[in-house]
């Protein structure tokens, strides 16, 4: 969770919504080498994730093998594949959440605009603040107010944020998550009182409140009804203007509708590691995939 992930961050940031130098890994203490570079980047922009030869393990079990891909900024990349093919594990490796599982390890390289997120000097907590995550089940803090849910990341992140600044971030985030109009008159009510779709958008608001560079979403709509799903998909389409977005989905139509690039993962048999089979423009994957394996999967012939 983003809130938890940001808890340990040492450095305070007085203006979480400010545009300058934000969202760099260098914000965390252990990576002073990159701070000048961060300062040199005016404003914020989405970033490219480069994945090279990544292998992921749970103890002795290899879950993912040899994934190399480029995740482009300002695009929605969908990860599809049958259960157990390692796509969620792979997603979790993109913001160093995989290593939170006991015994889990990562080989290979993942860089965010050229910076190795697995560099020994990089604070994983900082990585998770830059690369936010939204989960399958909406998980707002149920008793916490809507306002505090959105502000949670800020509260953990920063020493001092004025009420006015916080108000601004909360409103901007809720507007960004297309939720403001629905909740503006009941910001003090508990987050658990919202509908499932609203809760998921609240979680997205919470994720974007700390201004990440990348948003990872693990089946963000699987617990939502079709109307709420479309609302979240519309939101994703808008968020891609500001973020790099990676979505894991089991819903083929969602991948077809909501993503620009689709990556198909598969595994040869149960117990074998999952691997990337094919990645390309979504349109191509769904109209004319290069590999028969992809074709069989997207047309529902197996899986």
């Amino acid at each position, binding site marked *: 969770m983003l809130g938890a992930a940001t808890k340990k961050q040492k450095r305070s940031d007085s203006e979480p919504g400010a545009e300058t130098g934000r969202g760099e890994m260098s914000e965390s203490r252990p990576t002073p080498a990159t701070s000048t570079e961060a300062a040199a980047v005016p404003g914020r922009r989405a970033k490219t994730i480069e994945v090279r030869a990544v292998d992921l393990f749970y103890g002795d079990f290899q879950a993912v093998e040899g994934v190399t891909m480029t995740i482009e900024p300002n695009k929605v990349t969908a990860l599809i594949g049958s259960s157990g093919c390692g796509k969620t594990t792979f997603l979790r490796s993109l913001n160093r959440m995989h290593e939170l599982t006991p015994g889990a390890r990562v080989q290979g390289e993942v860089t965010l605009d050229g910076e190795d997120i697995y560099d020994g000097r990089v604070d994983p907590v900082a990585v998770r603040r830059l690369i936010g995550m939204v989960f399958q089940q909406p998980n707002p803090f149920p008793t916490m107010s809507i306002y505090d849910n959105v502000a949670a990341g800020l509260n953990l992140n920063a020493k001092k944020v004025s009420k006015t600044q916080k108000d601004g971030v909360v409103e901007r985030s809720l507007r960004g998550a297309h939720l403001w109009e629905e909740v503006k008159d009941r910001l003090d009510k508990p987050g658990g009182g919202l509908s499932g779709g609203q809760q998921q958008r609240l979680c997205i608001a919470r994720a974007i409140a700390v201004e990440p560079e990348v948003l990872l979403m693990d089946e963000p709509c699987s617990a939502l009804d079709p109307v709420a799903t479309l609302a979240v998909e519309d939101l994703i389409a808008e968020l891609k203007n500001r973020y790099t977005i990676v979505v894991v989905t089991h819903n083929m139509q969602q991948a077809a509708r909501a993503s620009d690039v689709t990556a198909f993962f598969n595994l040869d048999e149960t117990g074998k590691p999952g691997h990337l089979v094919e990645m390309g423009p979504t349109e191509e994957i*769904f*109209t*004319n995939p290069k590999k028969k394996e992809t*074709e069989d999967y*997207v*047309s*529902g*012939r*197996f*899986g």
Partner: protein
Amino acid sequence: MPEVARAEYLEELANLEASALGGLDLVSIALGRTLEAVEHQDVELAQLVVADDDRIDGRYLEVHQALITLLATQSPVATDLRLISSLLHVLKNIERMGDQCVNVCKVIPISGNEPPADREMVELILKMGRQTKALIMQAKRAFEGRDVEMAQDLVRQDDVVDNLNRDCFRLALELGDDADKREWAMTMLLAARALERTADNAVDIGEQVAFVVTGLFREFEDASHPSA
């Protein structure tokens, strides 16, 4: 995982393909009768072809609707999606070819029971018709076998039809001053034109074969930018 998932859907799609391509058999039969009617100036047979076109239209509507239902309920993608898209095209081609047979059959009564028929002209029309019929069956085989090479060969076969069509035109010009004969020749040119268009529809089906197989649609020949 099961050997074949979505077995019913796949069977339905295969049945619809067979049904749609079966429309080409209907067209082939209609064209055969049309040629016979032209050869013998058989007005009654011509009327039968006109009436029987309802069967071809019926096939078009029935399979078209079923394909739309598959699109709505099964969310086909990749090859399945291309196949359905191409079948929708092919059905339209079939419907048009049926109508062209009707067009030919409708001009037969105009020329009367004892027309001043020119044997050479009739032979040209029959030759065109037989060639067109062969094109239709070749298009069907190419589709069934997903045979792009055979589909592309349709262009070459179609050139034969086009040349015969030009021969018809030249011959009509040479048929002399007799008003009745000229009028008859005009109706035969309409028939030739309809057959020429029918053959073009068969070539269009070949283009759809290439689309299903390769995922790329392009016209084999562009009428507005002829290569030759």
